[in-house]
């Protein structure tokens, strides 16, 4: 079960013709797929399209009614390979993932499907994780589209345009026998808006019918000599067919200006950048808020392929056009130059010379860029700059992401820090997942991260038999099942690696929103879970395996130390196990509240710090970083440093107490067991204890007062 539930929202997927659909971008995409008669969907979660997977997962009832198969693919490569169902049969299918990282993983299958071509519409929805909020390297999916000749849709970021492009995407794919990629930027994925719904429709051919009546066409398989034919087919047939479809359905939009003021200029813009550009124009007094601008616009809802004659028609007679293209390299701008050169048009192309070569194109960036364009080509004066704000970013603290309150991954890195203190620093190879927050304060652990599931492979070179040091690699359970089991663990066994791998087994693909995986808790009715990591690791030949509870900091430290120093040769794997606290709380909190309400005897645990015992060194925070472990002003007027403080968000995971023990910090921490609905015996016993303790305390208080009198 995922972190965010769409159980309520998925009901909106039933909306029919004539209804207005209101909701998030990702739901709109799901709805558009159902309206397109899709037969199967799949993908791999990751921001910003994690929620699309969650929506499919929560919508399995509706998908079932329409006969749509939903596959939670093992990886993006697996998802892309699933599109093979559209090669021989007129079945529409869609898969989704985070890009460019997911597209990297998928590109083997993608290149194959693009080479052989498809019969049924094949759509890849990529969440373009670029700009603010992104967590990956800043690259473009555009390159993948170009290298494999996959058509790339980049719709204007409003739900109606996005939905229209999903529907066109399938038709374009079928018209040109080519898979189509639809790119959604981060904000578009999370966009709340509305569009006019249509009825959902089942796939005309069902998966079952196709499967029971198999057909094959050897010409679709990528092997010589067909592979050479495929390349020619792409150029001679599929590309022209795509261009024809795009032109005929006017997928790119030409927007005539409201006045002739700037008729000799123009702006070519990626569809996804349209709204930001329009706001920039509005602020420059060049557009109203309803899409009417003073400058002619050509909006590329199809970012690849470009339609050469539409471009030349737009540019003909213009002194200059501005190309608004986010990211680099500026493929479209380069292509535009080539198109104009071939057509022998002298229109100037302005782009990355007035806009930054790298980085997100925010409203401010576009506003400045367009102004610069007009200063150069329309004699516009530069507007006055905004006065600087009365505060700078240096006046506020940075907020790097970190482990959640009570996170079970925290003690793993606390243990590593303590072991490093004892044995000296180690080379630590990290992976992708929440555990990568270890590289940030307060842990500052980790040297590299090479990709999902590649934690151990990232340290493969350090397989040095005569060294007395070992490397530590980290992998999450998500990355482990994605490919780490074969690439990392299998590789280490085969290559006789002598190093250490820590697998963080928190029961979910946690960083992407808590989706279930093979080793998740039992109880998922639509998936088979509860397959342990230890069994898998042993299955590929690791002999030294320890599965331990992460919260047992002492044992974690001891086990790490043992793994790093044992005489036993061969790969060593520690499975550090404890359920993701975010998900656990989501499950258990309502149960606890219900139990309290029902009058059951239950105990809530939380931690605290005695402010008069704490001396304000904050070692505990440097070894933990729990959001609920924070500081507050020191009420002792003689002391100056803030004291540690546990706020009421504490979930009682116990790590701070364990840290105080293991690191021999201080006796300031206490655990409070707060009892709800006590029994009669509880109450009697408490009164008795309190009576005696209270009497002693009274005596001590009187003596203390007497000393001061």
């Amino acid at each position, binding site marked *: 079960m995922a972190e965010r539930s769409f159980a309520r929202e998925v009901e909106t997927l039933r909306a029919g013709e004539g209804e207005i659909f209101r909701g998030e971008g990702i739901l709109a995409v799901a709805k558009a797929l159902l309206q397109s008669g899709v037969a199967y969907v799949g993908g791999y979660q990751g921001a910003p399209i994690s929620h699309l997977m969650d929506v499919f997962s929560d919508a399995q009832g509706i998908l079932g009614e329409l006969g749509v198969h939903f596959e939670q693919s093992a990886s993006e490569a697996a998802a892309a390979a699933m599109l093979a169902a559209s090669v021989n049969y007129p079945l529409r299918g869609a898969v989704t993932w985070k890009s460019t990282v997911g597209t990297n993983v998928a590109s083997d299958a993608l290149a194959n499907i693009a080479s052989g071509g498809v019969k049924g519409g094949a759509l890849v929805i990529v969440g373009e994780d670029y700009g603010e909020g992104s967590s990956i390297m800043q690259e473009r999916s555009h390159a993948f589209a170009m290298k494999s000749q996959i058509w790339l849709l980049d719709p204007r970021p409003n739900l109606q345009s996005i939905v229209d492009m999903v529907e066109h995407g399938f038709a374009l794919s079928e018209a040109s026998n080519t898979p189509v990629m639809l790119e959604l930027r981060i904000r578009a994925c999370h966009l709340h808006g509305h569009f006019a719904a249509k009825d959902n429709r089942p796939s005309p051919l069902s998966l079952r019918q196709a499967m029971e009546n198999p057909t094959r066409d050897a010409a679709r398989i990528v092997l010589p000599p067909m592979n050479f034919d495929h390349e020619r087919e792409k150029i001679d047939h599929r590309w022209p067919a795509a261009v024809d479809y795009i032109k005929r359905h006017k997928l790119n939009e030409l927007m005539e200006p409201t006045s002739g003021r700037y008729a000799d200029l123009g702006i070519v813009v990626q569809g996804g950048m349209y709204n930001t550009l329009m706001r920039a124009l509005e602020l420059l007094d060049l557009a109203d808020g309803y899409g009417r601008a003073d400058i002619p616009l050509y909006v590329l809802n199809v970012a690849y392929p470009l339609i050469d004659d539409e471009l030349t028609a737009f540019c003909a007679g213009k002194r200059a056009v501005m190309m608004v293209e986010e990211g680099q390299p500026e493929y479209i701008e380069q292509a535009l130059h080539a198109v104009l050169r071939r057509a022998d048009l002298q229109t100037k192309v302005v782009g990355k010379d007035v806009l930054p070569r790298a980085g997100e194109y925010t409203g401010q960036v576009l506003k400045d860029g367009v102004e610069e364009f007009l200063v150069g080509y329309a004699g516009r004066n530069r507007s006055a700059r905004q006065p600087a704000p009365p505060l700078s970013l240096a006046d506020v603290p940075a907020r790097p992401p970190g482990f959640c309150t009570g996170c079970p991954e925290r003690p793993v890195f606390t243990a590593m820090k303590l072991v490093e203190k004892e044995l000296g620093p180690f080379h630590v190879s990290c992976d992708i997942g929440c555990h990568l927050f270890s590289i940030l304060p307060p842990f500052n652990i980790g040297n590299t991260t090479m990709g999902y599931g590649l934690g151990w492979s990232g340290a493969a070179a350090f397989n040095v038999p005569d060294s007395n040091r070992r490397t530590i690699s980290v992998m999450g359970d998500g990355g482990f099942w994605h490919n780490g089991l074969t690439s990392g663990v299998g590789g280490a066994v085969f290559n006789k690696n002598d190093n250490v791998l820590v697998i963080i087994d928190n029961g979910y693909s946690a960083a992407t929103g808590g989706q279930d995986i093979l080793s998740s808790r039992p109880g998922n009715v639509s998936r088979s879970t509860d397959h342990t990591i230890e069994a898998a690791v042993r299955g590929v030949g690791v002999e030294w395996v320890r599965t331990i509870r992460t919260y047992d900091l002492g044992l974690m430290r001891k086990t790490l130390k043992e793994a790093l120093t044992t005489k036993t040769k061969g790969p060593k794997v520690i499975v550090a196990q404890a359920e993701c606290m975010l998900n656990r709380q989501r499950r258990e909190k309502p149960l606890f509240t219900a139990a309290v309400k029902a009058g059951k005897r239950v105990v809530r645990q939380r931690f*605290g710090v005695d402010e008069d015992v704490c001396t304000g060194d904050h070692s505990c925070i440097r070894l933990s970083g729990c959001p609920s472990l924070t500081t507050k002003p020191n009420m002792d007027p003689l002391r100056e440093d803030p004291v540690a403080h546990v706020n*009421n968000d504490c979930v009682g995971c116990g790590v701070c107490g364990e840290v105080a023990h293991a690191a021999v910090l201080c006796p300031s921490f206490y655990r409070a067991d707060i009892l709800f609905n006590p029994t009669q015996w509880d109450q009697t016993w408490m009164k008795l204890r309190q009576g005696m303790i209270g009497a002693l305390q009274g005596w001590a208080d009187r003596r203390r007062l007497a000393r001061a009198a």
Partner: protein
Amino acid sequence: MTGMNPHRPIRISINALGGQGGGVLADWIVDLAEHAGYVAQATSVPGVAQRTGATVYYLELCPAAEDGREPVLALMPIPGDVDLVIASELMEAGRAIARGLVTPDRTVLVASSQRVMAISEKSEMADGEMPASKVVAAAQAASKRLVLADLHALAERNGSVISAALFGAVAGADALPFSREDFEAAIRRGGVGVEASLRAFCAAYDLAKSGVVAVPVAPTAVAQPPVRTASELRQRIAHILPEPAWAYAGLGVDRCLDYQDRAYAALYLDRLAAVAQVDEQFGGDQFDWRLTAAAARYLALWMTYEDVIRVADLKTRASRFSRVRAEVRATEGQIVDVAEFMHPRFEEVCDTLPDAIGRGLKESGHARRLFARFFDQGRQVSTSKLGGFLLLFGLARLRGLRLISHRHRSETEHIEAWLASAINAARNNYDLGVEIIALQRLVKGYGETHERGLRGYGAILQTLRPLIERPDAAAVARTLTQAALKDDSGRLLAREIAAVGGPSMIELAAQ
């Protein structure tokens, strides 16, 4: 452009921290606007920021056009172009201001003034908190209208969460063209925790309506003149000490009485009197008696060093029991069991024993081998249960033996050497003397933390000794102190010490 947009969309930025309910707030605003016939668009950039980082939600609300045309709405705020900024935490309000989103010509700023410390602030070894005053002043300067109050506390008082309070403050600030009833209806339609949300909403609404900018004042402890102190000791303070030292001296006497007894408090004053005497010789009146004042403060802290007896005493007091109950929000009569996390080591046991025995044991490798294994594990002691309480209560009663303990002996040596160094330095360089007194700040905590502090303190003291003649020695002392407080591995301190030609850490360790 001819015919500007007659319906300028309202631009709203919600600046929150992951997990603070920024999404719920955005949903309410969208629902509110759509029910009032507006076109509403909302978007966000959560990503990894969901995990404790800063998140931004951006909304635009536009009245539907008469001719049914669809507005083109933006997906991100542009500096200088935002009508309403809602910030769930003071520094997030600051971040919005620093990003230019709050401008005096148009922006209503509704912000909660409570602090959620960033990791960089709370992991400092001393005080790493960013100053709030700067942000508050900027908020006043940058906004067209400001609602600033601790809405987190307000929400908690009403059994709700901050999103409901922020929503109420937005309504109360008249920041959106919708009625109070419209706002409340949106909460009801949301259907989750409706009653509590409405309570927080109303309280925040009233607060914002009253137009109060509740400028947050961090609760700071102010040095008070002595009140509880035994009268003859109080008289002595006024008699033997210059006035600038009175407040700290009063607190110091109180602390020594609380820690040990009357004679100990008198010893504290004797030591201070000695400092005051030399301070006078050094012309202390020209220096505001800073040497004595600092000594009044730091001597009190050093003399009341944290030992097992002190911790046991503090943990078993009645006042502490009620503080814990309040902190964990136990209701009247609710049973709360308290487990203390203690990790007494072999060293602490030796420290508590009479000096001759304690030192003997500590130095005996045999005894260490024999006993240390009993102390390699932390222990949980339940002070709410009789056994655990009596154990700590009994330890606290060892106060009578404290002054003959091994620990006391070594602390006394340290204190006397420290005061002597400070006085010796002050003779040539008054400011350096004051800085040496303030080095006590480094010696705090327990166990390994205390050892690390003492190491840094010793290294700095030794480095400063040959520098007494240097006019900038006080500045060097401050730099070294900061370095010790900046990096607990000691590497930064070692570098700084090397930079002023001090001994290397290896040399120090060898001594």
